[in-house]
């Protein structure tokens, strides 16, 4: 049985995306990523001094990521402010995903802080967070091997989908599998892969392919967002 998406999208079609760079004046770099009704803001500070000093690493820098959903961001209950088990885990996996792109050895003994805030959510928050953070890191002038793009894939009923909305993720009478993935667009390496639900091996491989294709589209949007900020006229005269 084929699952028809409630918003009438194609199975491999993402929600409309909007991305911007440099939206937070006081941060060293910042990014905005909106996919459907999910909005992620990322601010990057640093490289700067790392304290307490015992955390410093003379061989490479440190990347710290904090993911946070704002209290009023969800569609149901108020999200309790502060760290939760869920947000700690997402901070951790986001950090791991970004680590594979950032050249830490360029800032020994220093730290780069990434703060991801979600003022409005409709599923796919960790992926939107990674996309925003990647824009923010590039905007902060941090040396990176590649950008990082992420999207959620999944299965509702027997249908494989890209970029699930909350309405799709929470379908009650069909089995749902949710699989956020993140890729380095140039090398095509996966840097985040989580899964929740039931899915076969063959379906995972197909979902990964769909995710990769979607990430390439996201990469183009990220690239344009960064260039737009400077193409307002920045030229070397």
């Amino acid at each position, binding site marked *: 049985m084929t699952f028809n998406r409630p918003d009438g999208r194609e199975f491999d079609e993402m929600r409309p995306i909007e991305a911007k760079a440099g939206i937070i004046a006081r941060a060293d770099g910042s990014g905005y990523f909106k996919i459907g009704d999910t909005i992620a803001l990322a601010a990057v500070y640093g490289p700067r001094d790392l304290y307490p000093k015992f955390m410093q690493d003379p061989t490479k820098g440190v990347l710290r990521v904090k993911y946070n959903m704002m209290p009023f961001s969800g569609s149901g209950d108020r999200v309790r402010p502060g760290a939760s088990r869920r947000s700690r885990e997402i901070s951790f996996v986001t950090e791991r995903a970004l680590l594979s792109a950032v050249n830490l050895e360029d800032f020994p003994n220093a730290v780069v802080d990434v703060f991801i805030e979600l003022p409005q959510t409709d599923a796919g928050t960790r992926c939107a967070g990674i996309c925003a953070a990647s824009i923010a890191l590039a905007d*902060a*002038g941090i040396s990176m091997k590649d950008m990082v793009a992420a999207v959620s894939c999944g299965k509702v009923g027997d249908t494989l989908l890209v970029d699930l909305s909350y309405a799709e993720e929470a379908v009650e009478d069909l089995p749902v599998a949710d699989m956020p993935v993140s890729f380095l667009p140039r090398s095509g390496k996966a840097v985040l892969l989580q899964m929740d639900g039931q899915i076969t091996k063959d379906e995972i491989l197909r979902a990964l392919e769909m995710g990769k294709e979607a990430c390439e589209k996201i990469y183009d949007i990220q690239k344009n967002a960064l260039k737009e900020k400077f193409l307002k006229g920045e030229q070397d005269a």
Partner: protein
Amino acid sequence: MGNLLVQDKSVVVPGEAIAEGMDFLPASGTFREGEKIIASKLGLINVDGRVVRLIPLAGKYLPKSGDTIIGKVSDVTFSGWRLEINSAYTAMLGLKDATSSFIMRGADLTKFFTFGDFIVAKIINVTSQNLVDLTLKGPGLRKLSEGRMIYVSPHKVPRIIGKQGSMVMMLKESTGCNIVVGQNGVIWLSGKPEDEIKAVSAIRKIEAESHMSGLTERIKTHLGNGNTGENNDIQQA
């Protein structure tokens, strides 16, 4: 045979392929992966013969040997002074490099420079761990007093200085202020208060409009108008 994949002077994002083939050589801000030269930062591409260089558009000041910078004394140690230089790292000004006069062992070093003093110094060495050594030996290198400090983006400094110092000369002549521009984006101005405000507003204008052509002309008219820049956001150090 090598070929460029992007245009010279275009904006690239991290991970973007710039050139293909072994004929091109990767310089600062770029790296080679296989046959391709990849950008590692957000910046402008500068192709100089076979050398492909990236001029960063964002990010903190990166200490470079030979740069003249303005630092603020943040610590006084046994052997010299530690300076904050508007970067992720601090700089050391050693006793030997600070003065040619004889200093007794155990002398009170705050008599020479004390906490909060601003010093124009030159970077003599930057190690792999980003330890920065400064010297005061050279023309114009000294402790600064009586004036105001403003902070600008280090990437705008070349525009504020202008070709062969033409822009800063114009600022000095038309405002009558004494101006020192540090490569790290710290600028010292000293003159009559109203002249200082005039110079600050002109610098803020350069910062905001540095990417548009005809900058020198516009700054000239701006200065000629007797614009006091009362409406501008003047950030004082």
